[in-house]
């Protein structure tokens, strides 16, 4: 094996065929690193090259790519992130999920940048990696266990508590389409339902321990840059708040803006917000602060409940999204019950966003009379009934009962199965439930959900500059000429620019292994220039900001092309009616709707995509070195194959029709 030419990478990857049990250690192709960096980029490239669009995400033909990036395990702030890429069982199209914690760096230290899982094991297995020793092991004794127990059993049977794991809970085993993958320590790659892909492959866990090092091309320069970035983040004006409350601090900020989705997006403010705010959480339940790998921010906290019905619950990663989806979204104002719901989702392996949204969807169907009492398997789906919420989470995770089994499909697929107008209340884009970011109260977020390559998602573009107003950073990144509109959440001007730039930069961050919350978007100290410098000094690869922008664009365009192979077109780039037709009822956003029509054409133009079809233009793809992709999508569209695949995706399109009285 010839040596990999760049530092920063382990330079090898694993290809694990679960059907045959064959494990290959292969040199990492240099063109993957140079063209796509790592993580999200390499995952996209493998999916594009190796998984044809007609593949069922839960079939042995789908592949699961677990990928780190060149900065992961290094010195940069929060060099912890790893990426899971596969076809999404939830949306049927491109899917990915990203997690922090400590698994990614450990995989690099073991000497691997990427693992590609293929096929399906005959019986449950887990992959064990200790440096050069890589083997598939029987996981019969782990099957049926929750994520927490699985992790500890693997550590114990291998007599090493420093083993890091990526595991699924029961939800993944049951192929619940909103299942997550849990990464040591209790961080989740939650979106896109990728836990179900692991479950369908009979892959219970990946366990890794590594003692090799990662070479740094220019140690002194890289360390100086990393130290400067750590220092700047610590000095950032938002540091204290994020450090103190994590994302939970956003609850109190979003509430007055009317940007705190309530009752399945019927409202933008929650009268019980104080009971579930970051301040209340810290005051009543904080145990201690914890951090992902090399992160100075430490947005994660451990919380526990000391008394009452839920005494004894200890949980972490209680995010803004969770507080909303399992709180305001379902009208639940019982914080201890919410913490219990969080720890259950973590253990069983459910995405808290999709789980909460799916439950609020069901509650609204009951409110509107589309689901009858008889459909509810004896549960009272009244808004805010926390006992129902906890029980329903269990039934979803275990696919128990008709309702549990139905909702385990996610809101958009369940809507199609229910029919009878249910799709009007499924708040999703391209099959994935919309997170707690209302496009009416922040225009850029509405656009971001629509253009996200994995269905509704705030984290692809992650437009935070206009979230609460971030003028100093907006000026530094884009220049004074775009103010004040750029930082005004209700203005549509320049938002196409913000979203496109965020998607490209985000693709790069997710490909490198650092964090969108730790200094790149939130506390935005690291931008194109700094990121390029970090990659160059870490790897020795020639890199400047312009080259990096091209890579970000290439990754994002390839994801779009992959979705086009699945029949996704301009017609799918829509928000449900509630966001574009019903004015926001409260807060600063009162009276506002999301003006997609004013942003989307400019977005396509900036991307170099066709305004009618939403397909990338030939010149755009040629410029990005993706000429082959242009030929492939056009051939597929012309043959009619894409429409056939689109028809089989399985979810009901969001309702965008006229608003009638009966809605």
């Amino acid at each position, binding site marked *: 094996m010839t040596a990999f030419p760049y530092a920063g990478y382990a330079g090898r990857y694993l290809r694990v065929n679960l059907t045959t049990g064959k494990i290959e250690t292969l040199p990492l192709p240099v063109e993957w690193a140079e063209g796509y960096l790592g993580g999200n980029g390499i995952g996209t490239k493998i999916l594009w090259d190796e998984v044809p669009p007609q593949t069922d995400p839960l079939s042995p033909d789908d592949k699961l790519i677990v990928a780190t990036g060149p900065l992961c*395990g*290094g*010195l940069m702030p929060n*060099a912890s992130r790893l990426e899971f890429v596969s076809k999404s069982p939830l949306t049927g199209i491109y899917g990915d999920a990203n997690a922090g914690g*400590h698994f990614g*760096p450990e995989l690099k*230290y073991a000497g691997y940048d990427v693992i590609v899982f293929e096929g399906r094991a005959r019986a449950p297995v887990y992959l064990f990696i200790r*440096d050069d020793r890589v083997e598939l092991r029987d996981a019969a004794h782990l099957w049926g266990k929750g994520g*927490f127990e699985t992790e*500890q059993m693997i*550590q*114990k*049977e*291998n*007599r*090493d*508590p*420093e083993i890091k794991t990526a595991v699924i809970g029961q939800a993944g085993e049951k192929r619940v389409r909103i299942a997550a993958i849990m990464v*040591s*320590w*209790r961080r989740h790659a939650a979106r896109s339902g990728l836990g179900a892909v692991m479950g369908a492959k009979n892959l219970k866990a990946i366990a890794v321990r*590594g*003692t*090799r*090092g*990662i*070479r*740094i091309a220019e*140690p002194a320069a890289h*360390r100086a840059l990393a*130290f400067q970035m*750590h220092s700047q983040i*610590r000095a950032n004006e938002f540091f204290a708040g994020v450090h103190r409350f994590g994302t939970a601090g956003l609850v109190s900020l979003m509430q007055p803006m009317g940007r705190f989705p309530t009752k399945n997006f019927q409202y933008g403010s929650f009268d019980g917000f104080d009971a579930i705010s970051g301040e209340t959480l810290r005051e009543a339940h904080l*145990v*201690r*602060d*914890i*951090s*992902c*790998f*090399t*992160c*100075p*921010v*430490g947005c994660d906290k*451990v919380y526990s409940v000391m008394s009452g019905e839920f005494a004894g619950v200890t949980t972490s990663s209680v995010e803004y999204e969770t507080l909303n989806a399992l709180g305001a979204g379902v009208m639940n104002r019982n914080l201890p019950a919410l913490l219990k719901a969080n720890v259950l989702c973590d253990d069983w392996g459910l995405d808290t966003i999709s789980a909460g949204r799916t439950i609020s969807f069901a509650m609204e169907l009951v409110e509107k009379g589309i689901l009858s009492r008889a459909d509810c398997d004896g549960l009272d789906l009244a808004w805010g009934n926390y006992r129902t919420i906890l029980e329903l989470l269990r039934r979803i995770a275990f696919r128990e009962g008709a309702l549990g089994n139905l909702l385990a499909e996610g809101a958009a697929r369940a809507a199609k199965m229910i029919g009878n107008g249910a799709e009007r209340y499924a708040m999703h884009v391209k099959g994935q439930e919309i997170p707690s970011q209302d496009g009416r109260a922040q225009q850029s977020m509405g656009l971001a959900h629509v253009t996200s390559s994995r269905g509704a998602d705030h984290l692809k573009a992650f437009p935070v500059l206009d979230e609460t107003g971030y003028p100093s950073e907006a000026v530094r990144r884009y220049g004074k000429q775009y103010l004040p509109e750029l930082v005004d959440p209700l203005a549509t001007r320049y938002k196409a620019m913000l979203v496109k730039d965020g998607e490209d930069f985000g693709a790069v961050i997710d490909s490198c292994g650092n964090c969108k919350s730790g200094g790149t978007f939130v506390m935005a100290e690291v931008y194109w220039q700094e990121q390029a410098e970090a990659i160059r000094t870490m790897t020795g690869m020639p890199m400047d900001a312009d080259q990096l922008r091209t890579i970000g664009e290439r990754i994002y365009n390839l994801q779009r092309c992959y979705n086009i192979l699945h029949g996704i077109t301009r017609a799918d780039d829509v928000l449900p009616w509630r966001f574009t037709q019903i004015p926001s009822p409260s807060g600063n956003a009162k009276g506002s709707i999301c003006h997609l029509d004013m942003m989307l054409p400019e977005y396509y133009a900036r991307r170099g995509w066709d305004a009618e079809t939403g397909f990338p233009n030939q010149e755009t793809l040629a410029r990005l070195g993706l000429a082959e992709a242009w030929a492939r999508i056009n051939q597929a569209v012309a043959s009619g194959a894409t429409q056939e695949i689109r028809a089989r995706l399985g979810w009901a399109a969001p309702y965008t029709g006229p608003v009638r009285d009966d809605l």
Partner: protein
Amino acid sequence: MIIYADALKCTGCRACEVFCSLEQEGLANPARSGIRVVKDEPRNLFLPLVCPPCDEKACIAACAEPGALRVMPETGAVAIVEALCTGCSKCVSACDIGAIKFLRQTGRGKFGKAVVVKCNQCRGAPWCVKMCEPGALQYIAEAPDLNGQTVFERLRAALKESEKILAERGGQPRRRVKIK
């Protein structure tokens, strides 16, 4: 000077380990750092272990090779002189707080087979302290008096407790950490 570690403030991010390993070994590799964070997450326990150094210096007494372990005059840190270290690992066993690691590696040490790795306080400007955002690590001239307990006593007690807990979870006692 001593490095004082406050386990209650540690968030377990391991920035100390990775910056230390770069300084000491020229690689990003926590397995080779002079400081290590023993973690027991289910119990919310993080224990940064580093040589303060202590007063007893049992490591130097145990060392079979004169001069291989010595006190640096500027800082008071106990440092390894790699050219003299035989890699016998007697100091590793002698250290009560597990602050010394055994490293088997061809080309290292007096006999070209193995060395031990420990904190040398980066010659007066320890990176671990610099990178510790929560302030769990402090570089101070005098050991603080902790209700009559010395820093070393506290570390020893904490280590004993953590080893007990780790053993329950199937872990080995940490005195000898073998690294490839």
